[in-house]
């Protein structure tokens, strides 16, 4: 019975496993190295702070989306949620003279409400999450464009100034974004809610069988995702100084790229906010920034972005098919039948 000892893995397979496990770290290092060598002003403190500043909204939005993806679903309405809530916020302040703090709370409530709408359609109406968020993505953007008459509306000057608020050399929104990422990271790793998201991502049926309230957790995940999309949207608008029709357009795709590049599997159950999602944001932002420094056509960026996500997704689907090497702690025997064998 003891003759099936596990053979040493072939070198090629080992190389592939290594590449799949550490691939994105290698890419991150390679990208930084490449731009450092080719663009002289890339690796300067000012540029790096500028880069993080630009990336801050994405960090927030991607960490919310990451939770949804870890639960094995997808939310592509984040960009439209960001746009609609900030449009409403700007209108409230500019046209109706609302106090900025009050507006902030109204927007957070509104963001949660839009998330609840997604959650309701997915959990109660049982509509496929992709179709649900495709519908809300386009519908919510429609409402936003209707309200703003698709014009640019500047936000009040005193708020615009917040966009450049800094402690020493570091912009405040970088700190806010990192703090939010840390909180989401802790929710993911340290709370029952976060762990149950992972359980659902592993297998919703199994999770349900073990007593996880799958519907409730799924619903809350969508609420968190929209809430963070709203916060990200507010950060963007403060940076830009105005709402315009293209706030958050294409954001759903960028956020999905971040998540996949960050090593969070679209098949669910795997991945992390820190360092995963953060690494994804950094890789994308560094490429955008670096290409800028090299004077590349800004339109080319979208193309490069698409290519990167294609590769990242392929790696993801490969990884999900990879057999996990079981470490048997005391027996060298192999079990004779798989656990679910039925025949």
């Amino acid at each position, binding site marked *: *019975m003891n003759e*099936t000892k596990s053979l040493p893995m072939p070198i090629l397979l080992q190389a592939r496993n290594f590449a799949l496990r550490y691939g994105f770290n290698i890419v991150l290092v390679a990208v930084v190295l490449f731009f450092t060598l080719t663009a002289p002003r890339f690796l300067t403190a000012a540029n790096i702070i500028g880069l993080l500043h630009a990336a801050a909204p994405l960090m927030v939005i991607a960490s919310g989306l990451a939770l949804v993806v870890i639960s094995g679903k997808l939310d592509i309405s984040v960009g439209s949620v960001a746009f609609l809530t900030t449009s409403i916020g700007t209108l409230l302040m500019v046209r109706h003279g609302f106090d900025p703090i009050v507006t902030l709370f109204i927007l957070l409530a509104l963001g949660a409400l839009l998330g609840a709408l997604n959650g309701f359609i997915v959990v109660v109406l049982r509509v496929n999450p992709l179709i649900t968020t495709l519908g809300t993505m386009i519908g919510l953007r429609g409402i936003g464009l209707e309200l703003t008459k698709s014009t640019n509306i500047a936000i009040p000057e005193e708020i615009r100034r917040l966009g450049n608020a800094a402690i020493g050399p570091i912009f405040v929104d970088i700190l806010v974004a990192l703090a939010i990422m840390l909180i989401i990271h*802790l929710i993911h790793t*340290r*709370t*029952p809610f976060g*762990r*149950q998201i*992972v*359980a659902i*991502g*592993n*297998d919703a049926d*199994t*999770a349900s*069988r*073990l*007593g*996880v309230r799958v519907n409730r957790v799924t619903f809350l995940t969508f609420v968190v995702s929209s809430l963070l999309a709203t916060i990200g949207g507010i950060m963007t608008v403060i940076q830009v100084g105005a709402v315009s029709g293209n706030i958050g357009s294409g954001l759903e795709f960028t956020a999905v790229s971040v998540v996949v590049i960050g090593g969070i599997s679209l098949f669910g*159950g*795997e991945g992390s906010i820190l360092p995963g999602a953060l690494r994804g944001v950094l890789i994308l932002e560094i490429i955008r920034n670096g290409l800028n420094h090299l004077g590349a056509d800004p339109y080319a960026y979208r193309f490069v972005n698409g290519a990167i996500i294609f590769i990242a997704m392929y790696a993801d689907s490969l990884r999900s098919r990879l057999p*996990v*090497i*079981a*470490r*048997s*702690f*005391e*027996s060298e*025997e*192999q*079990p*004779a*039948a*798989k*656990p*679910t*064998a*039925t*025949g």
Partner: protein
Amino acid sequence: MAEPYLQMIGITKQFPGVRALSNVSLAAYAGEAHALIGANGAGKSTLMNILGGVIRADAGEIRIGGKPVAIHSPLDATANGIAFVHQEMAMLPTMTVAENMHIASFPTRLGWVDRNTMVERTRPILRRLGCQFSPDTQVQHLSTGDRQMVEIARALLSHPSIIIFDEPTSSLTSREKARLFDVIRGLKAEGVTIIYITHFLDEVFQICERATVLRGGEMVGSGVMQELKPEQIVHMMIGDLGVEVHQKALKANLGEPVLRVTRLNREGVLKDISFILHRGEVLGLWGLLGSGRTEVARAIIGLDPIDSGQIEIHDGKTLRVVRPSEAQRWIGMLTEDRRDEGLLLPMSVKQNMSLANLRGLASRWMLIRDDEETRQASRLVKRLNIIISNLRQPVRTLSGGNQQKVVVGRWLQVSPPIFIMDEPTRGLDVGAKAEIRNIILELAEAGNAILVISSEIDEMIALCQRYLVMNRGQIVKELPGSATRNELMAAAAGVEMADAASI
């Protein structure tokens, strides 16, 4: 004598059209393991699901510690100290052992998962089970045996006084099995009541004090292990011998080989499967649930991957080596789950019957010739006596027997030389079963080679010229067509019975 700790009295359960349990009673004692034995469909799992609160009995009473209890939900069962170790493991691979055990009820402090408490609760249970891995190991890195231990550890978390083990050893190695038995002995010493469901009689004699045998939803025997013999239990499981009918005519000589399988291997599933299937032969692949029967069939036609092995098929002239994906060209496959892997339920009878033969029905432009499709379908509907109102009727609306005939008809349109039939009559009524069996015998008579897999011993006896007995992914024995039920049952359960034929 002490009073039994757990008593189930006069349990009756009726499902639509089927009486699953009638007046079944069971009495188990604290500190003992009680074996629940029976063939597939005998009612074991129904009985245990009633105890576990998954389904409710129509009549009967459950007493624990002498007091009647009402169990209406799994939560009630847990509250009454009942824990279930399922055969089908509920594992979350990317999460740790401790998380897998606590997923529904994490210990928390101020809303955060209290990891220390969680790990401290897990550690002694793992130690008690003799596990070497840490509570922080991800389940995906554990072997099947270790995962089974996690499943048991989860059950122990609630400090149950009654533990139900459902086929706990079907995926374990012999060493892991020995460890499991040590654990069970330890639990018994602590006064826990164990219900042990299994097919393997040797295990029952090793670990259990008492046994209850079910057949067809009725209790057919129970007693203390010391007073029972394996032959007696086998007899109880399969019932009277009087009705044995041999429809088949045993042939003296086998035809030429049409399928030769040599040393088929798949790690952890199949080991060194070799056999030859002959023209005109019905070969039975016999074994208990989980023995690897279905996996052999799936590997041959390329539905599951294999690690090594060779498949040869007679292509009309000579035996030649084929790849599993190619083997489909000569093999008609009836899968065990016809709804999940056989039928296109919303589609018509005609379309279901032509699915494998579409290339044959297509004209030059690859358009399907409607008249020919109809002709073929109605020919086979007549031949197989399928009861339908018209050929456009959706298959979903047919009875099980007619659905199965539709799948058979699908392959008859192509008329491949080899058929693999996995559970060809499962879930069918008596009349439909007989019809399908007759079709199988006719096919063999006409020179086709047929590999039959069935959980029903009567079916195997009625059909097969020869048997291969499987156990834990290996072919352990070959028996001639004249083998008796006792011999078959004993071989599959792993019991040596020198005088089996004399019963």
